[in-house]
């Protein structure tokens, strides 16, 4: 591959470049970098410092007063779990006879809330707010707690559950 150009072609190239671009170069004092020397360095430094300061302030604001919801979720979930764990723990720690006696004393008034807790757990406000934390402890704990509570009167509870749902629509719809 040829690497040389004819002399007249080189001259033509030089003539085109020299006539098009003036040879007069400005003095260094007149150049753009000389006039911008001090003016650019300072604002860049200031802009960077300002950006860092604003970012830090934003992070502090977000950390302190930002989204409170995640923490509230945790607090509410923990409260719900402790409430649910704490109530049966107090009632389940005594002997089964005590539980039977209490269930026997309260009768249907005690059964209905316990029976309604498990199926309606998804409908409770706590379950709506944090479905996952409430859903996880209940399946493990509710069968253990429900069975002793529901075992004395299995038929009424089942009958109430099944009967409550089925008869209710018919009168209401009939009315």
């Amino acid at each position: 591959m040829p690497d040389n150009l004819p002399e007249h072609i080189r001259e033509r190239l030089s003539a085109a470049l020299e006539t098009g671009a003036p040879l007069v170069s400005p003095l260094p004092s007149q150049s753009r970098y000389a006039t911008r020397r001090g003016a650019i360095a300072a604002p860049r430094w200031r802009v960077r410092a300002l950006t860092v300061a604003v970012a830090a302030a934003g992070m502090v604001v977000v950390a302190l007063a930002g989204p409170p919801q995640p923490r509230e979720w945790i607090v509410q979930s923990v409260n719900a779990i402790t409430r649910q764990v704490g109530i049966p723990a107090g009632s389940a720690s005594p002997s089964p006879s005590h539980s039977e006696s209490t269930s026997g004393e309260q009768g249907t008034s005690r059964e209905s809330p316990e029976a309604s807790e498990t199926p309606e757990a998804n409908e409770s406000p706590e379950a709506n707010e944090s479905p996952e934390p409430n859903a996880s402890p209940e399946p493990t704990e509710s069968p253990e707690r429900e069975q002793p509570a529901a075992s004395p009167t299995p038929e009424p509870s089942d009958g109430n559950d099944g009967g409550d749902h089925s008869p209710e629509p018919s009168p209401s719809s009939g009315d």
Partner: protein
Amino acid sequence: MGGEPRGDALRPGNRDDFDRLYRESYPRLLRTLYAITGDAAAAEDCVQEAFVKAWHAWPRFRPERAPEGWLHQIAVNTAISYRRRAKLRSVGEILRRLGRPGAGRDPGDAAAMSDVVTALAALPPRVAADFVLRYHHGYNNREIARLEGVSERTVGARLAQARDELGRRLGPEWRGQLPTSEPAGVHFPRERTGVGDA
């Protein structure tokens, strides 16, 4: 190439040394960027902008580098950015003028711009830069390769591409000649003349 300052003779961050570099490099950079942009005013603007960038990087300049190669890279990158912006502007202008008669090119600019510069500006920027460095500034392939931090093979390929493109646009004599094929003093006949010939 002879008068350019050596890197180890320059003190990074020193204003006087940078001024000296500016005085000695400015004409060469201006011509190179003129070939890339095809516009003298734009070339001047790019050279000035390149020196602004270089001034900011001057405290970090490594003296073992060739200072003009360092400047050359900054300047060519600036010209490439300019060309990209100009292309985007022209596309935007076309879209804005859609359906209306275009303003066309300024006849004064068209007359002032030779066909050689037009053909050079149509080349890829680095190809045009290498062509000017080789055939106008007088660098050899090895020096261009060192200047740009690429291999000599790359430089050779770029020069071949430039000669091929220019030969297609300006005439076959721009493709070059074999050193032994032409007797001294005898020129190839010109097939095509342009504005720049005058």
